[in-house]
């Protein structure tokens, strides 16, 4: 399954024949992806399709059984998570895993854990406040007491503090008030457009994901079943039936 439409673009992240197994169960089975630099690419699919596992294997949180992951030409398949973050590839995990007992400010500071230039950290933080003014208002508040949408903003903000070149978002719309979902997706587009950060977005909300992305992959039980430009997929009858509600 060669994706000719992507072959022509320089890709920043490539997965070749990636398989991940939890014991005898194959969560991800021989998938290959290419993410062009500067794009928003989405990975959609139902529960248990292997979306989160794919992201976790890219960021080093789970070890693939087979396959190679290359980021900007570097083989990152066997690197530890913190080494991968240091390369500029940041992962916003599913379920907005903020540090619930720490304040918003401390959460953001931890995002800049690997940053050494205080002036740059300050600048990044100010930029995040323009994206999510709510975070500035809640700076001293304990992250666990924020609303779902605010926690998601914080999780994204924390990832941005690491000044990534590549951002992976795992279900940013999960369990969030619809109004905030719109805001968050608008910000994702801004982050991509204004800062040139490549984004790999995992979503169950296929409508939204196809709207803001340029390319899409559909995962079904660990395999890629459909892929192509998002505009084409929006019209694809198979996808319409399965994910877009007819």
């Amino acid at each position, binding site marked *: 399954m060669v994706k000719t439409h992507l072959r022509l673009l320089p890709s920043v992240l490539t997965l070749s024949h990636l398989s991940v197994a939890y014991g005898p169960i194959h969560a991800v089975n021989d998938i290959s992806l290419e993410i062009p630099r500067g794009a928003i690419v989405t990975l959609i699919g139902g529960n248990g399709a292997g979306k989160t596992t794919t992201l976790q294997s890219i960021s080093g949180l789970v070890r693939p059984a087979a396959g190679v992951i290359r980021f900007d030409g570097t083989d990152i398949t066997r690197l530890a998570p913190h080494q991968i973050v240091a390369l500029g590839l940041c992962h916003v995990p599913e379920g907005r895993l903020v540090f619930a*007992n720490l304040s918003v400010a401390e959460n953001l500071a931890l995002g800049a854990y690997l940053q050494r230039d205080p002036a740059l950290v300050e600048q990044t933080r100010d930029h995040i406040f323009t994206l999510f003014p709510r975070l500035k208002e809640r700076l001293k508040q304990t992250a666990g007491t924020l609303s779902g949408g605010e926690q998601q903003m914080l999780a994204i903000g924390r990832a941005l503090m690491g000044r990534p070149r590549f951002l992976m978002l795992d279900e940013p719309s999960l369990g969030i008030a619809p109004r905030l979902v719109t805001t968050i997706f608008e910000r994702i587009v801004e982050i991509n457009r204004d800062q040139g950060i490549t984004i790999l977005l995992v979503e169950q909300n296929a409508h939204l994901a196809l709207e803001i992305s340029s390319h899409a992959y559909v995962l079904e039980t660990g395999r890629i079943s459909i892929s192509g430009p998002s505009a084409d997929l929006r019209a694809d009858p198979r996808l319409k039936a399965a994910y877009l509600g007819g």
Partner: protein
Amino acid sequence: MPVPRQHVALLATLALAGAVTAFGGSLNAYHLDVAMNVGIAIILAVSLNLVNGHTGQFSLGHAGFMAVGAYLSSAFTLRLVPASASAFEQHLLFFAALLTGALAAAVAGFLIGLPSLRLKGDYLALITLGFAEIIRVVFQNTPALGGAIGLNGMAPLTTIAWTFGWVAVTVFTVSCLINSTYGRGFLAVRDDEIAASASGINPTRYKVVAFTLGAFVAGIAGGLFAHHQLAIDPRGFDFFRSVEIVVMVILGGRGNTLGVILAAVLLTLLPEFLRPVAEYRMVLYAALLIGLMLLRPQGVFNLRLGRSATGKI
């Protein structure tokens, strides 16, 4: 700009250490004894809090590290401090003995920290408990260290100044560490390992550092304990000693340094007030723990609202 919390902590501890030292001369032997026990308990509780509270790694092996410190520093002073040494030389060598014991304890902590990379919660608690028991049994079966009888005849080198000096150093170091950029990594590992990894933090390293540092400080406390009690035996470092320290941390509120200090003071003084029913001390501890878990799961002295780390032990 408010005064950083860790500086307040240091000043408060130093003031307390100074006050205790100044009044130390006017205290009777019994009060002096209790004061030193309080100090040693604070050092133990604050160091365990780094592992159990801040980093969220449930360890039941603190008495093992204390034992290493106690035995090695005692062996050091018994063998290497000549009777003819002046008071100054004795205390200088005592300092070296404390560091030796603490370094050995740190090595033990490092070794115990390694399994903590793979184990969580109750499994980790069991492993650390087992490790501490191994340490105790090794001492019990080493004739050179007195075997089951233990070591005795140490010089009473633990003074009130030494004790509260170390209290100040411990509290200051831990508070500074936790409030630093590096130290927030401990809290991040406790709150969520996946999110910590995703932020570029290496949880493995933090767990090992917490165990090693916690054990080092427990080793110091062990040395102070040995040169205060003047006789140590393996039974003094059994499971119940570990549990005592864990109770202080839980009672104070895991991750809350001030609360843990207060709990250490309370739990050291309590048995003194309960002398007539001393045999029921462990029963009381148990009752206290049960009551605490029912009434204040976030820790007795934890005044901060919000979700604390107590939900997951």
